[in-house]
């Protein structure tokens, strides 16, 4: 503080006396402001992308070469099967961070400030979701890129990849409400992680991400056949292989739709409840 007290006081006066207030921002402007915040956070905390970037590369490379020969005759053959599954697993894992980030925010004073502003009260949550879409797209894009370098060839080309990423984004947005709910309901980011993994592990591994369910025992196969993550993987495989049907896409959308209808009202009510 080099300036003298009087100077500081004068500057303060000048800055504060501009009482002109711009017209209140619209809900859309509020959402855009929070989306901007999400982008800035990605820029300043690249560590959070680490999970979204390194894990998928590791999984794709590791599983292709470890299991490839044994499961599909060659790594190349296996990659054709595995890649859509890894895309789903990666993005579903990434969706957990939505809840963790929200919980971290809520435990800090910054949400008090947001809540004391004349803004649309749900705009912080909706704005953050736009940042999530960017993360999801980045993650799945990287998986596809690594796959292409390793020899993966989608039958339906660029269009197939774009449609599959869009479907993946949409379904993960739906599943994401589970973590948003956990993020609002639980006390610490750590417990959001713990609950999140408890849910994600069986959902992603007891699925058809790595192998087809036909060789599994009947009880497990019965679970995998209705596992929403597996249904999403099936839909993505169909889209990328050119064998997809409207039915498989429809099946993949059921669970995310149900989760949204059930969890979104709970999450938003919990969020609105003043604490």
């Amino acid at each position, binding site marked *: 503080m080099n300036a003298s007290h009087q100077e500081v006081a004068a500057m303060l006066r000048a800055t504060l006396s501009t009482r002109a207030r*711009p017209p209140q921002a619209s809900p859309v402007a509020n959402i855009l*402001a929070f989306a901007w915040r999400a982008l800035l956070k990605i820029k300043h905390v690249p560590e959070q992308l680490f999970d979204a970037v390194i894990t998928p590369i590791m999984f794709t490379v590791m599983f292709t070469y470890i299991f490839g020969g044994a499961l599909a005759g060659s790594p190349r053959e296996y990659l054709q099967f595995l890649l859509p599954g890894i895309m789903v697993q990666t993005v579903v894992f990434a969706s957990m961070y939505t809840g963790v980030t929200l919980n971290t925010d809520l435990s*800090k*004073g*910054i949400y008090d400030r947001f809540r004391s502003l004349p803004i649309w009260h749900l705009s912080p949550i909706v704005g953050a979701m736009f940042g999530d879409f960017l993360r999801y797209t980045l993650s799945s894009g990287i998986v596809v890129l690594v796959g292409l370098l390793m020899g993966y060839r989608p039958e339906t080309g660029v269009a197939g990849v774009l449609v599959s990423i869009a479907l993946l984004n949409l379904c993960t947005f739906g599943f994401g409400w589970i973590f948003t709910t956990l993020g609002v309901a639980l006390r610490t980011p750590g417990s959001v992680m713990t609950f999140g993994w408890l849910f994600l592990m069986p959902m992603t591994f007891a699925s058809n991400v790595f192998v087809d369910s036909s060789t599994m025992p009947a009880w497990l196969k019965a679970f995998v056949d209705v596992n929403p993550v597996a249904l999403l993987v099936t839909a993505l495989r169909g889209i990328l292989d050119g064998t997809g049907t409207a039915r498989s896409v429809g099946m993949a959308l059921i669970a995310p739709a149900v989760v949204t209808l059930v969890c979104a009202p709970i999450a938003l009510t919990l969020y609105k409840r*003043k604490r």
Partner: protein
Amino acid sequence: MSHPDFAIEAEGLVKHFGKTKAVDGVDLRVRNGTVYGVLGPNGAGKTTTVRLLATLLDPDAGRATVLGHDLRTEAHAVRARISLTGQFASVDEDLTGLENLMLLAKLQGFKGRDAKRRAGELLGAFDLEEAADKQIKTFSGGMRRRLDIAASLVVTPDLLFLDEPTTGLDPRSRNQVWAIVRALVADGTTVLLTTQYLEEADQLADRIAVIDHGHVIAEGTSGELKASVGSGTLRVNVRDPADRERAGLFLKDRLGADAHFEDEASALSLQVSDTGRAARAMAEMTEAGIGVGGFSLGQPSLDEVFFALTGHAAEETPAEDEPGRKKRKGKGS
């Protein structure tokens, strides 16, 4: 119902968290354009009171108007005219100073370039220009607090809540915050600040509410509060330290109170209830041949007032909730 002269009128505000009666019937009237101090120890209910008045909590009972708007039915209108600087940094640690202020400017309706200009003005006024492009997590405590307050002034509010604005700050940063508060008030903003520092309330506040266990236990100007305790303190320096004992006995005889011998060998003090009698006793003591180097008749300090009102000191339990921001949920302080 609301009176145009008052920025805040609260009656019987109650907020319980489970069995904790955080706020248990608080009445407040804060005149426009003044600084109002809410003084009390940790856990007295200060933060909960602020959170109620800033529309972050709904009261269990009672009513309040803030800037003429009913707190329950017109919360949005209240939010448009108030600002809150919470006890814990209410800025985004990951973002830079400039980005934080721009985010808040955008949320308050400034568009792209205007948002940046306004953020720049505030950084300049709060002496944070060098920190514009640094992330908040690298800021010192004083810088953080100034940014936090700047973030509340993107649009100059009619009423600003400052919850313990100087807790944990070094004296220089504290003086900076005080200067900011004075500049704000000079400009016409009403400020309600909570503090556990008696000196801060004494320095800044036009009126003070002393709050303990969720109740307002005393209210008035700092002078009134001091006077309400009733007694003042007579401090005497005798010319010859050898006379001190005799002076003590003499004054005890005249004023009926025990003299307290200070560390300084010539100094003694005693509590008096009648200042006129104290002045006469001093004259008589000089006539009796006890040389007096000087004496003063002072009001009790706010510390003494707080002690007299509550039976315990104001600044207690420091270790438990220094800025750590753990105790967020549940009970406020």
